[in-house]
């Protein structure tokens, strides 16, 4: 019945072919860009963020080569000089070169930011996985996390620093503890939703043991949201570190960090603003870079963002 309404191809030879008019292009053609370069082109935020961050990283690593002097060398005779060809960012109250101090300060900031992001992600991931899989532990862990989250991270970090002496290592530990609840909550939420995925059910039906399910089916799928979260934690850790150092509860004064450079310049803010200004600019740029990277990654990794229609 149905196929009777189509003529066999051979019957067509003698009749004219009715061709449809060609359709014009409404939009200019797009050249598809694939591979790594295509990814970068589609995600300019990542390029901007990662680029700035790389510059900061280079500054931190190569600080001794970037025309710096000893950042801790005191020179009472040359106190509070204005920025000049000799002292690019001027000198502070003790005559130390602010340019060198700011550049070396990058090390502390990045070290704290990256370490906290990494440590709190790893620990938060572990806690989140346990809490998402072990039902009896979940309510206990989550109540503890709720309790910790009711204290602002900065206050918690200050309290923890008060218990110990100031060192970069202790700053990292204190901020990490303060950030763990956030990551744990995120991971737990992701784990609970992943556990409901049909592919996890199918793996259970296929006889896969729970540890393998976590390792193979849950963990890889938590990495994208955790990476994004880690960048935000990195940015926040840098700010918290600067605040801790600023109020004298962080990095010891012997190690230059943006926070304690600003703290030392605070008293002269009205007359010699550059001592505070330069470390502040560096902090802002670095935090901006990390946040840009995070936003870019979020957009690129979130499947819900319909990038390709």
């Amino acid at each position, binding site marked *: 019945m149905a196929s009777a309404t189509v003529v066999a191809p051979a019957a067509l030879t003698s009749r004219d072919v009715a061709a449809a008019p060609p359709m014009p292009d409404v939009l200019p053609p797009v050249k598809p860009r694939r591979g790594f370069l295509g990814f970068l082109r589609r995600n300019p935020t990542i390029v901007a963020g990662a680029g700035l961050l790389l510059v900061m990283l280079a500054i931190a690593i190569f600080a001794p080569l970037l025309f710096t002097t000893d950042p801790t060398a005191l020179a009472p005779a040359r106190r509070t000089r204005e920025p000049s060809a000799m002292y690019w960012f001027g000198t502070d109250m003790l005559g130390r070169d602010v340019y060198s101090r700011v550049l070396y300060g990058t090390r502390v900031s990045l070290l704290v930011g990256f370490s906290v992001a990494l440590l709190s992600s790893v620990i938060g991931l572990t806690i989140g996985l346990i809490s998402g899989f072990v039902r009896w532990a979940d*309510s206990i862990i989550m109540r503890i996390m709720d309790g910790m989250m009711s204290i602002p991270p900065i206050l918690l970090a200050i309290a923890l620093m008060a218990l110990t002496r100031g060192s970069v290592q202790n700053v990292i530990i204190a901020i990490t503890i303060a950030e763990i609840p956030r990551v744990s909550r995120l991971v737990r939420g992701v784990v609970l939703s992943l556990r409901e*995925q*049909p*592919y996890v*059910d*199918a*793996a*259970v*039906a*296929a*006889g*896969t*043991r729970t540890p393998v399910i976590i390792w*193979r*089916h849950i963990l*890889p*799928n938590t990495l994208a949201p955790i990476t994004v979260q880690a960048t935000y934690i990195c940015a926040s850790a840098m700010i918290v570190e600067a605040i801790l150092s600023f109020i004298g509860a962080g990095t010891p004064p012997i190690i230059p960090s943006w926070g304690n450079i600003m703290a030392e310049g605070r008293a002269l803010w009205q007359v010699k603003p550059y001592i505070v200004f330069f470390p502040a600019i560096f902090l802002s740029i670095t935090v901006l870079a990390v946040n840009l990277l995070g936003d870019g990654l979020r957009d690129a990794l979130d499947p819900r963002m319909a990038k390709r229609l």
Partner: protein
Amino acid sequence: MTALLEVTELKKHFPIRGGFFGGTTGHVYAVDGISFHIERGETLALVGESGCGKSTVGKAILRLFDITAGQVVLDGKRIDDMTAATLRPLRRRVQVVFQDPFSSLNPRMRVRDILAEPIRNFGLARDARDLEERVAKLMDTVRLPRDAVNRWPHEFSGGQRQRIGIARALAAEPDLIVCDEAVSALDVSVKAQIVNLLQDLQQELGLALLFISHDLAIVEHMTHRVAVMYLGKIVEVAPKRSLFAAPKHPYTEALLSAVPVPMPGAQRERIILRGDVPSPINPPKGCRFHTRCPYVFDRCRTEEPKLAAPRTAMAPGHVAACHLHDRPDSENPLAVAKGEAVIPV
């Protein structure tokens, strides 16, 4: 010989947690005492509307959670109370294909690893070469090119992903596959491809299928027997032809008459049910269908009907849970075969 799968008085109640301390404030009576069996090589369809508990039944058989009450017996062995370790080797015999071709494959695993997982878990391959050979054969079985094993799930279309899902189920060499709405999310033309594939596989491999679906036309095409669920209960079970030609439960009759058919202007008797399905948290007393039944009478509101074979059933094995069949035929609108009236031809 015993049936491949025998389910008796299966219940699954989900607790509703609420309040500050997370106490139980009520239950969702998702599945509330159902019994059925599946023979080797047979397709049993479980049909019903969303929320009737049909998917919960599928997951209970797969032991994806513990059941509240009842028994699930696979090939003579009771599996509902086994420990996880004793159960694991038996899991090989019951596999699953899910509805959504996108969320049913781990996006971070290549097709090869997806198919190898059950083979490794159950120790089905002798060595690495045998494993590779088995994966390649599975691709042949589901009509996908062998070299596609190196690709990621997102590189495939919905229909192709569903084929991968079927191949994963077959990898364990099961006796029974639970198809949970396995073709519902697919486009018409792709759906036909997958339906044909499932039918071919069943013939070739002698598989039994539990075909969970809301699509009656596909069910009629695919299955041998049909069980109709409503609000956590099975209301009718029958061999396919008997069910479609002479439904013996008012709900089945209404379902059949509600399916839109691609025949413009077709004449048919329409039974449009009023209202909505009641909540499974607080199911109605008596017959659960009485709030929407066009033939309801007093007894239905108080006494719950049991599954029983109506006198007027067309074939043996046809049971329905309806008080109408205790009445004289003259007072029973379902005494006659209504299939021809409600399905246009």
